[in-house]
């Protein structure tokens, strides 16, 4: 690849200070995305997906600490910016986010329009007229009528709120859009509608998307690249075709096999056991206690990401055996 | 959450530990008081002026003498039932009781009083005289009288002053003052009348006049001897005891109020009273409120609507004005105060409990349990009550100081139960008799401090229990 990636993240590490000590919520995550490309971060709850998103926006909680990491947007190192400069220059203008739970994302006492227009007024110093214009444009992107601007959040249905939140994220025409479980609270038909719209937006606006979900099937709906996360680390990452069709890491394989499908007669399988507690991580590969293919080495040495023949990167000793 | 877990949370915080310690002290003192003082202490002793007649009035606590520059006379009581000397005067017996006092020339007693009790005579009433012998060899007769003789139709032996001693306030007695005037004229050639000497009896007895116009007296230090002589007509006549009080300027550990009541006793009696008011009220408020809240929230329908409407109105009535009115009209009785506080207190809790029950109901526990075949009672009291129990317990602790403070406020307005002394009442009597303006701080500060400490104890416990109510805090700790 010759062109500079839109967003390039290397060795991101975030830890939380708790009673049980320093917990590595994000432990050496690296990825990059191009314009018009979507990256899916997939994993069970507690895998650190949402922490990655918060780190990208520098919104980690009080007890969080950025241990290391580099983040370049079109080649510019964003972590070199001061907090205030980051807020003024990056948040929402370059990187916007749609959070899990649209209802909780909206301020109940402010009109939806006010909340959509706010970034325009603050970052662009737009006049009220301009702001309304831009907000209408954003709403039209998600097929919402302009009347929504005058409504309060509690007057909208779940699907409308979700769309309004997406419109709010798009109002400054950011380059990168982070979507954190944007459809998990919605009915299946509404979910499908919104996914269709997101696909449209990705193409129309040439957005770089980071799509976070626990549902690997949903990730396949939009993602060009898929990263499977487990206990703060990347288990496997690669082109959607490689990860979905020929998963290399046993965890990715199990995650795929656990999906109940209707196009195949195959029964879904389950992954035995539960994800580890970050306070007491197993030695060696973090997945080895649940891994059906684990062998001695897995319990002592932590595998790094290794290129696999399918074109993906996998953190599994099996890949080394093969090569 | 189990009881043990609650205790662990409570003892895990500084405020919880302090609260538990304070509570232990409060309970200990209360139990000791209940054991030592009679339960009718209020009507039998506290409000009986005779009980406190020998005490100095509005005297500061004894330990104030420890303050530098604070000269005070200590309170002296001489009490005897055995005469020091018996001399035969014809057929009669002269019995002499004598008390010695070393006077350092400092502060004078605030008053002198003499008491005689349990006199029994066969025919002729005994004669009594009280005399003081000064270090300078002079003597003053302080009192002289004859016990009241037989009444018409009364049969011997004649008993006198058994129920209540004959008590003479020497400082204010006209006879004593006249005798003092004679003494001054005789010994120092200073002419005066009893009226002029009013309030100066102690100065005359314990000093030497410096001028003819009674302006100044030099204190006369040295040993004084007070002699009480009783002339009994027949040898079988008995005298139970004589008592001479030289009232000090300080008294006991907590001082006295304007009627001479020992504030220490009143304050001590306030402990069990305050604790009982607080705990009984909060216990019943919590019990009724919780029960009604659970019933209302769980049963729903008309029951719910009824309880809800009632609670909505009842809990919004401002308590103090209504409490004032009801106690004024229905009578100043402590149990009534407690009952009214319970009546107006539970609806507030019922509303809160109901909302908690609704929240629990909105989860699936109730449905799931119903689908097991569990009865309503089981769901209400095994599942719902258990879940809200920690909160209810914390509410009970939280409500306790409110009850104590409400009673104190009511007492302060003069609506306390006269038969049961409370801290609020002690404050009220102090306030009403202008103790604030006269600077009798020992009368005003201690009851207030005790009220605040007692209320504070429960506030501290509530603070310590906060993680029980607010699980978010529990996790954050």
């Amino acid at each position, binding site marked *: 690849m010759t062109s500079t990636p839109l967003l390039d993240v290397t060795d991101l590490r975030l830890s939380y200070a708790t009673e049980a000590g320093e917990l590595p919520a994000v432990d050496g995550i690296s990825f990059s995305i191009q314009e018009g490309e979507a990256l899916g971060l997939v994993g069970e709850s507690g895998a650190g997906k949402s922490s990655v998103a918060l780190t990208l926006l520098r919104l980690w909680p009080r007890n969080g600490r950025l241990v290391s990491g580099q983040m370049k947007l079109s080649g510019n190192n964003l972590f070199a910016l001061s907090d205030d400069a980051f807020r003024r220059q990056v948040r929402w203008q370059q990187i916007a986010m749609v959070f899990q739970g649209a209802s909780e994302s909206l301020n109940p006492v402010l009109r939806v329009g006010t909340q959509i227009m706010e970034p325009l007024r603050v970052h662009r110093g737009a006049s009220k007229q301009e702001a309304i214009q831009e907000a209408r444009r954003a709403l039209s992107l998600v097929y919402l009528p302009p009347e929504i601007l005058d409504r309060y959040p509690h007057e909208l249905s779940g699907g409308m709120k979700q769309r309004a939140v997406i419109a709010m994220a798009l109002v400054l025409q950011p380059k990168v859009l982070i979507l954190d479980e944007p459809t998990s609270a919605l009915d299946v038909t509404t979910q499908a509608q919104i996914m*269709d719209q997101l696909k449209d937006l990705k193409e129309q606006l040439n957005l770089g998307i980071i799509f976070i979900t*626990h549902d690997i099937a949903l990730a396949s*709906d939009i993602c060009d690249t898929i990263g499977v996360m487990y206990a703060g680390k990347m288990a496997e990452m690669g082109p959607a075709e490689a990860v*979905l069709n020929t998963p290399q890491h046993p965890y990715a394989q199990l995650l795929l096999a656990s999906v109940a*499908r209707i196009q195949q007669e195959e029964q879904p399988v389950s992954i035995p056991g539960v994800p580890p507690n970050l306070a007491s991580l197993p030695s060696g590969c973090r997945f080895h206690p649940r891994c059906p293919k684990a062998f001695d080495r897995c319990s002592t040495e932590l595998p790094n990401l290794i290129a696999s023949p399918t074109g993906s990167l996998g953190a599994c000793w099996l890949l080394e055996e093969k090569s | 959450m189990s009881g043990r877990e609650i205790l662990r949370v409570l003892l895990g915080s500084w405020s919880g530990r302090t609260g538990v310690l304070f509570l232990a002290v409060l309970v200990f003192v209360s139990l000791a008081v209940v054991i030592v003082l009679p339960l009718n202490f209020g009507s039998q002793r506290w409000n009986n002026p005779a009980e406190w007649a020998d005490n100095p009035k509005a005297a500061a606590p004894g330990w104030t003498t420890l303050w530098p520059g604070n000269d005070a006379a200590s309170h002296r009581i001489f009490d005897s039932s055995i005469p020091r000397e018996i001399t035969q005067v014809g057929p009669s017996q002269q019995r002499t009781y004598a008390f010695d006092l070393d006077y350092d020339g400092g502060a004078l007693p605030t008053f002198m009083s003499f008491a005689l009790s349990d006199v029994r005579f066969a025919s002729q009433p005994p004669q009594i005289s009280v005399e003081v012998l000064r270090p300078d060899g002079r003597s003053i007769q302080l009192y002289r009288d004859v016990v009241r003789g037989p009444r018409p139709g009364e049969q011997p032996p004649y008993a006198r002053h058994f129920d209540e001693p004959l008590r003479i306030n020497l400082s204010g007695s006209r006879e004593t003052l006249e005798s003092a005037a004679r003494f001054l004229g005789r010994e120092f050639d200073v002419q005066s009348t009893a009226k002029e000497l009013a309030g100066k009896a102690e100065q005359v007895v314990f000093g030497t006049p410096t001028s003819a116009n009674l302006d100044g007296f030099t204190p006369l230090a040295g040993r004084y001897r007070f002699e009480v002589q009783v002339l009994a007509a027949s040898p079988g006549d008995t005298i139970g005891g004589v008592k001479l009080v030289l009232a000090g300027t300080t008294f006991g550990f907590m001082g006295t109020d304007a009627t001479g009541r020992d504030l220490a006793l009143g304050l001590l009696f306030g402990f069990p009273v305050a604790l009982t008011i607080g705990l009984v009220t909060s216990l019943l408020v919590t019990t009724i409120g919780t029960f009604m809240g659970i019933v209302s929230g769980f049963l729903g329908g008309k029951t719910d609507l009824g309880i809800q409407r009632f609670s909505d109105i009842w809990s919004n009535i401002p308590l103090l004005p209504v409490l004032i009115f009801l106690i004024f009209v229905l009578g100043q009785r402590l149990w009534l105060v407690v009952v009214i506080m319970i009546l107006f207190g539970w609806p507030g809790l019922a509303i809160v409990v109901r909302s908690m029950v609704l929240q629990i109901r909105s989860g*699936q526990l109730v449905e799931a349990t119903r689908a097991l075949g*569990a009865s309503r009672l089981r769901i209400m009291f095994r599942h719902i009550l258990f879940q809200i129990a920690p909160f209810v317990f914390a509410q009970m602790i939280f409500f306790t100081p409110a009850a104590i403070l409400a009673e104190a406020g009511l007492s302060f307005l003069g609506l306390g139960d006269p038969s049961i002394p409370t801290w609020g009442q002690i404050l009220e009597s102090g306030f009403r008799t202008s103790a604030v303006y006269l600077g009798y701080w020992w009368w005003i500060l201690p009851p207030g401090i005790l009220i605040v400490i007692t209320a504070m104890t429960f506030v501290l416990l509530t603070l310590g229990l906060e993680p029980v109510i607010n699980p978010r805090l529990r996790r954050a700790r």
Partner: protein
Amino acid sequence: MSPLLEIEGVSMEFRARKGLFTSVPVRALDNVSLHLNKGETVAIVGESGSGKTTLGRVCLRLLAPTGGTARFDGEDIGRAGSRNTRAFYHRVQGIFQDPFSSLDPNMTVGQIVEEPLIIHKEGTSTERKAAVRQALEEVRLLPAEDFISRFPHRLSGGQRQRVAIARALVLQPELVIADEPVSMVDASNRAEILYLLRGLQERHGTAFLYITHDIATAYHFSQRIAVMYLGRIVETGPTHEVVNNPLHPYTQALLKAVPEPDPANRFRRRATAKGEPPSPAAPPPGCHFHPRCPHAFERCRIDVPSLLEVRPAHSAACHLWPEANPSALLPETPPAS
């Protein structure tokens, strides 16, 4: 043989408070009929507001229907009288959606699983303890001893749901109403719980009414499916039939909406039903689905379609399937892979 559970024309109307003195009727169930045989699993599939949960509550005796009857083993569930309550719940049990709020946080796992036995006065204390241990082993909370003294908040969502299953099965009921038992469990754990249920069904011959919004899990777990939309059953039939040859446009939309892990997905649109489900308080006239239906025509706006058998044992309530002519216009049938 009469069915174990027989629902006949059940309707359920609530009154939703609107103003101070006004309320509007909300039809949660509208003339629903369904039956379930011994040892069979029927799935009720629908989105929020479809009435599927209300139906489950009616079957669990938690709600009395405002119309029609629901019978369990020939006896009217709603009018069985409180004397028979316990007997009813001995044979019918429920599993609920939320494993976090359906377990009493103050009870240990052992107490939770033992509670139905205590309520139904079953066995001595030792016998009950043994039954609890056995139930925990059956749901594979192993070793059972470890779990008995634990509190639910120390368990994962999947583990809690298994406790709920153990509690429902400790009485060995004949029918279990499972209302979204896996929707709040992490995707990777769903299969395991469904297997567990199926294993129990095979061993004990328990019948299941499986209520879900996810037609994919219903596909793997049930023998028959009933699809509900706004209080009505719009399609019912053998699972395989319904999924592979859906008759009702809503069922088709539901099937289209199911995401499957396929890298080609990102290049196509799902084109599922447009709009959002209307509020049950103000349902559209005629066929409730007509505003969102790609095939709607005039009649759909006026007439309520009745549930008719289009293929053997496979019925749909849709005007596209006129009574007389089963082979008329067949809508395109997904899945289009």
